[in-house]
């Protein structure tokens, strides 16, 4: 299902690929697919409508920058609009502060509290945790067990029923700590008395930050809940949890739009170390179910500099192993092959299962083998006979068969490049990939 979506998005983008004039119908189609992609990632429907309106207006009104095609132009606008939403300044400073955790039941506040404590502890802060969850049985046991593992003091009392009293006592007890994290009971916006409670806790702690913990799977409800929490305690950051599942975290996007804050951290695993600073590129790629937009543009630019690959020599058909080595290196810089392929405008090209992994590991092997060749062999691969092959294989810790395979791959690349030179300049990626997979 989601794969279908991202392919339809890619198809829509592909239609824009060759165009030099903006095509209203094609843009509209792209917007429609974009809407479906975002909605199926749980972004709030109203927010999607606003976003797509902005993207449509900008796409049609803005001048096409020189040297870019329509596809790049529209992609960049899509990217910028999304980044504008999530990339508010959610700075995490390493200074004395109090952090108040808020969120719905079961969103992962307690686990995240422990992860945060670990994060700041590793940064050299003297950290402490207050367990103000007086409701859920086992909450104190959970956080105190987690804190004990990382040697962070945890204040709490499972017998005490008054969260406010606990918080006051906790602040007193942890006075010597530079950074205090207050874990609270899960609550939702319709529970008026619990909302009152967190407002009071916020007043007592004079919290520097009030972070809202959002489950990546949270749906349309995210906007509403975030809005109510924001009204109550002025949320200034959002943490997305459970990003290790298949959920896309669109709810969090709605939440940051609602609270005008940014995403501070992402929780993506069950161990205490599984907490990352937020990275907008990866997040947006995931939302749209397609390759890393910005990264493609930037990385492709810096990775393939003119001096890396001598395009002219290659076009003349003079393609040596040395060129291939550089090419593989350039690919390596751009990241995993799968990502690169995902970023290329190839639409719904079907790739055989497993081809990515095999080929990217192969590429590493090939580079190692080439490291064992002499300069002469690299410049003129025809020199390589069977005894040289033996030597190269020994040097690279591989087999002569693998060396032979490399030569075959090289010849294939050479042929492809010749075809490129001859055939109207269309680089047939699909054919190339077919050959890739045939060689596994």
């Amino acid at each position, binding site marked *: 299902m989601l794969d279908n979506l991202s392919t339809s998005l890619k198809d829509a983008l592909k239609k824009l690929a060759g165009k030099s004039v903006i095509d209203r119908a094609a843009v509209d189609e792209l917007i429609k697919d974009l809407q479906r992609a975002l909605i199926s990632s749980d972004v709030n429907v109203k927010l999607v409508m606003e976003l797509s309106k902005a993207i449509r207006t900008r796409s049609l009104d803005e001048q096409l920058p020189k040297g870019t095609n329509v596809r790049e132009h529209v992609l960049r606008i899509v990217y910028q609009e999304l980044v504008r939403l999530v990339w508010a300044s959610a700075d995490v400073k390493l200074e004395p502060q109090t952090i108040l955790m808020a969120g719905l039941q079961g969103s992962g506040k307690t686990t995240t509290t422990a992860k945060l404590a670990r994060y700041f502890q590793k940064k050299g802060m003297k950290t402490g945790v207050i367990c103000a969850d007086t409701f859920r049985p086992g909450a104190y*046991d959970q956080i105190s*067990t987690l804190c004990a593992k990382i040697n962070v003091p945890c204040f709490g009392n499972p017998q005490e029923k008054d969260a406010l009293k606990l918080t006051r006592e906790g602040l007193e007890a942890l006075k010597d700590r530079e950074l205090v994290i207050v874990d609270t009971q899960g609550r939702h916006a*319709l529970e008026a008395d619990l909302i009152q409670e967190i407002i009071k806790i916020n007043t007592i702690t004079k919290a520097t930050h009030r972070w809202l913990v959002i*489950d990546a799977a949270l749906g349309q409800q995210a906007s509403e809940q975030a809005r109510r929490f924001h009204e109550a305690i002025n949320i200034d950051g959002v943490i997305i*949890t459970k990003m290790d599942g298949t959920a896309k975290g669109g709810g969090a996007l709605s939440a940051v739009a609602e609270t005008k804050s940014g995403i501070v951290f992402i929780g993506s695993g069950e161990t205490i170390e599984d907490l990352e600073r937020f990275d907008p590129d990866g997040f947006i790629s995931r939302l749209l179910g397609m390759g890393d937009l910005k990264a493609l543009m930037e990385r492709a630019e810096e990775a393939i500099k003119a001096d890396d690959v001598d395009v002219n020599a290659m076009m003349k058909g003079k393609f040596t192993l040395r060129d291939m080595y550089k090419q593989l290196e350039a690919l390596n810089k751009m990241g995993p092959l799968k990502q690169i392929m995902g970023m290329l405008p190839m639409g719904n090209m079907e790739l055989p299962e497993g081809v990515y992994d095999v080929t990217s590991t192969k590429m590493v092997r090939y580079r190692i083998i080439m490291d064992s060749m002499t300069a002469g062999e690299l410049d003129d691969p025809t020199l390589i006979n069977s005894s040289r092959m033996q030597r190269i294989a020994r040097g690279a810790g591989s087999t002569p068969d693998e060396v032979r395979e490399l030569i075959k791959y090289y010849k294939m690349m050479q042929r492809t490049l010749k075809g490129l030179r001859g055939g109207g300049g269309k680089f047939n990626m699909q054919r190339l990939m077919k050959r890739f997979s045939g060689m596994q």
Partner: protein
Amino acid sequence: MFGGLKEKLQAARNRLGSSIQGSAAAQAPPAAETKPGKAPQPAASQKTPSPAAPSFTDKVKILIVDRELVVSEKDLAEALSELEMTLLECDVALQVTDAIIASVRTTLIGKHRKIGSSIDDLVVGALKSALLEVLGTGFDLVQYIKTHPHPVKILFTGVNGTGKTTTIAKIGFFLKKQGFTVVIGAGDTYRAGAIEQIGVHAERIGIKIIQHQEGADPSAVLFDTVQYAVSHKIDVVLADTAGRFHTKSNLMNQLEKIKRVMKPDLVVYVDEAVAGNDAVVRAAEFERTVGADAVVLTKADMDSRGGAAISIAHTIGKPLMFLGTGQGYDDIIPFDPVQVVEELLGSDA
């Protein structure tokens, strides 16, 4: 609960009604007086008849000969896209929304409508049958327990933080009130504090709990629980498990092992009513790996929309058993699809 969905569906239904009526009024002035008083006012009463197939002459023929009207695709297009947005806003997953819209469309389009019959009824009928089709039948746990050999072993699965442990306490309390004896197996040996959590619950509701220490093999805990139930002639075994993501194959394998060892009669999949599109993905994956016989939706009180119920039921085609609606042990209600749909589309519009 589910008030939001109800409200929106009723608005959409009024729109559907009025758009059909709009074209009806234009085609057939004599039909106008047959409108029942409570039906919504026609949106555009002087629309020209659309020349869409079936052709205008056909329509007139049917109108005169059979005293019936034909509903065309054009009449519905706008209202259906409205309904689509409504469902999406209510967290019904995209693919499920598509299915429901398609069902309503095929039911309504080309349908001959007796001039005297209420337009309201027609639309409500189509929506109702589409929703009922999606929601399937409910699941009567009490009846199930009564008709199956004891102990009835129920295994609870689901991703992290959906409320499995709390749900077990609630169901335990519910069954106890129904006069069954219950034992709980503390199969979440992974999460810190989980054993304490279910231990406290069990103590409060007066149910025996079988537990090992943290980090123990959950299969062993649950096997012991079943053994205990057999030797003490207990009616029902409720087996808790650690929350796990469907993407972690090692944890899913562990769940399969638990299933092999304790041989549950029912596997109950627990998810939260506030989940969005991912509800579909993970429900399908759990169904595929360990199976699911029934579904419990939690946190229905924080959700006024309830789309996840429709999404999950549609995806795995398994009945919804309970809804969790609050923090107390009493806050659980058996799910009755007919009642819910009646309530959503009821006559109190």
